[in-house]
């Protein structure tokens, strides 16, 4: 690389930058941009697993979606799960972060345990919950029976309302640690002097919390909320493993319904048209994240 005295490719920053960037760009174009365009195209086609030839079908798939009560159910559930989960994730994430930033012995162990739900592959933790919410042997029911709150069993994964509660609970459980980690990064970034100045000014815990900590970490909390929202909104694993959408599609979400129609049912075009509904909200959330991050840079 020392070679000749002349400027070679290895010296030219401009060319080098492109050369370094290009493989990733091509990979992403080929396997993200192209599939995305294809996903849009498929939504307007009649492609099935049995008949993969591409024929234009116009808005037929969408029309069928709009006539399908399951689609509406899935759409509604997706929004409901996302909104409720997001709210709970942020509240619990903030509380958890406040506990985790404190100094105490055995912090490492606590942190390890707290992070388990997030680091474990979703499909596997959902399996653990499957048994925890079993219709007969659920230990939760066992405890509730012992306390005397219920008799018999709660059908966690069979009764429509409980089914939705279960799905939301698992989402919140799994994403709260992530939110906590994000908020923690923000908490740590608050200069100590500000906290100390507030103390000197005689502000108590709650006033410090609401007048110093929360305003300063608001952008970071927004990022945590939006990450939580995106991950809940687009996820199908929890629903798929826990309920497979439920016998009456009571806990169906867009992603799982797209999978059931597109892969299990083999109607690729129909599935694609369902999945496409994920996109607008996703875009909005992405832009919101970006704005929050920008705000973080200013402060």
């Amino acid at each position, binding site marked *: 690389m*020392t070679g*000749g*005295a*002349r*400027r*070679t490719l290895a*010296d030219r920053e401009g060319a080098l930058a492109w050369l370094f960037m290009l493989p990733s760009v091509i990979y992403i174009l080929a396997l993200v941009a192209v599939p995305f365009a294809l996903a849009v195209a498929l939504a307007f086609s009649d492609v099935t697993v049995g008949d993969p030839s591409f024929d234009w079908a116009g808005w037929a798939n969408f029309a069928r979606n709009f006539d399908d009560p399951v689609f509406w159910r899935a759409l509604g559930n997706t929004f409901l799960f996302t909104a409720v989960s997001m709210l709970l994730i942020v509240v619990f994430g903030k509380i958890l972060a406040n506990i985790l930033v404190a100094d105490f012995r055995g912090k490492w162990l606590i942190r390890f345990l707290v992070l388990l739900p997030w680091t474990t592959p979703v499909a596997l933790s959902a399996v653990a919950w499957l048994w925890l919410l079993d219709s007969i042997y659920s230990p939760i029911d066992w405890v509730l029976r012992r306390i005397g709150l219920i008799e018999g069993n709660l059908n966690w994964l069979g009764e429509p309302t409980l089914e939705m509660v279960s799905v939301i609970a698992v989402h919140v459980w799994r994403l709260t640690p992530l939110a906590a980690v994000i908020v923690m990064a923000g908490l740590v970034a608050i200069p100590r002097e500000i906290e100390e100045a507030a103390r000197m000014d005689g502000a108590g815990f709650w006033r410090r919390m609401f007048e110093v900590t929360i305003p300063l970490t608001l952008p970071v909390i927004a990022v945590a909320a939006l990450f939580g929202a995106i991950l809940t909104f687009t996820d199908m694993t929890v629903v798929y493993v826990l309920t497979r959408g439920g016998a009456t599609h009571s806990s169906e979400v867009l992603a799982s319904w797209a999978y059931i129609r597109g892969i299990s049912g083999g109607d690729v075009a129909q599935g694609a048209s369902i999945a496409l509904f994920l996109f607008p909200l996703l875009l909005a959330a992405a832009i919101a994240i970006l704005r929050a991050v920008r705000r973080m840079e200013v402060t």
Partner: protein
Amino acid sequence: MSTVEVRDLVKHYDKVRAVDGVSLRSADGEYLVLLGPSGCGKTTLLRTIAGLEQPTSGQVLIGDQVVNDLPPRARKIAMVFQSYALYPHKTVLANIVFPLKAEGMDKRAREERARWAAGLLGIEHLLDRKPRQLSGGERQRVALARALVRQPRVFLLDEPLSNLDAKLRASARDELKRFQQEIGTTTIYVTHDQTEAMGLGDRIAVLESGTLRQIGRPIEVYDDPADTFVATFIGSPPMNLVPRDGRLVGFRPEHLLPLELGAEDRVTLKLDVDRIEYLSGDRHVYGTATGLGEPTRVIARLPATVLTPIEPGRTYDFSIRGEKLRYFDAATGRRTDPP
């Protein structure tokens, strides 16, 4: 050994003109100091000479050869960064042999050369350490040894003393000078510290806002500043400037002396003293001067040998030797002839 020259060098970043048309040339083996306040473009100029920045226009010549198209590695230069930029993952020895390894020199020869350089700087006992185990002064020596080992045509030093504490800085400055005299390699040295510049440089180039204000031997820059910027940037306390008829009359604080010490050819003025500081035996007398031009606050520096009693709150007669007066255009700040 080589000369370094830049011709009409311009470097823009977006809208900032970091270097705005600088031409200068070092003599062979010269110790040339680039002096200026932060943001004056001196570091950009040095980095452009090194090839780390591409000039927007103009030429860089090393040894009378245009090197604009050469990457840094091919310019046969050595650079010492302000941070010393030691490779933190390598031992001192590995740091020193790094440029030789890049040249493809064989292992025996490069170790021999590294030991020679280490010997010259008195750091043989540190060769097996890692940079983080070294003190600031030791790091600086390692950086110098690494610069030296390749026997470059030119040394480029970017504020190499600014990370040392004040005490160490004086002795390091002395060492740096002796070291350069010993090896006689052309050196371009960037600093914002005028003491370093005056002490080290064969010549000093004073830069401000990306332009070259003056280049000359330390005594020239000090005694005959080309403009008011140089006059006030160099010297501590800076040159006094008194407005008079569209001009500024300049004189160094040490030339403003009580009347009875004045010589033949002299100008007198009255000084309303309001404050006196004692610094290393000298007295710095602050006051308002009248009689020379518009009333202006000035500083007089009286050496320890001047025993005239002076008290704040009173007015004294002072004088300046006429030949020590310098005149500047009030509008442009440039040097003008005496009236």
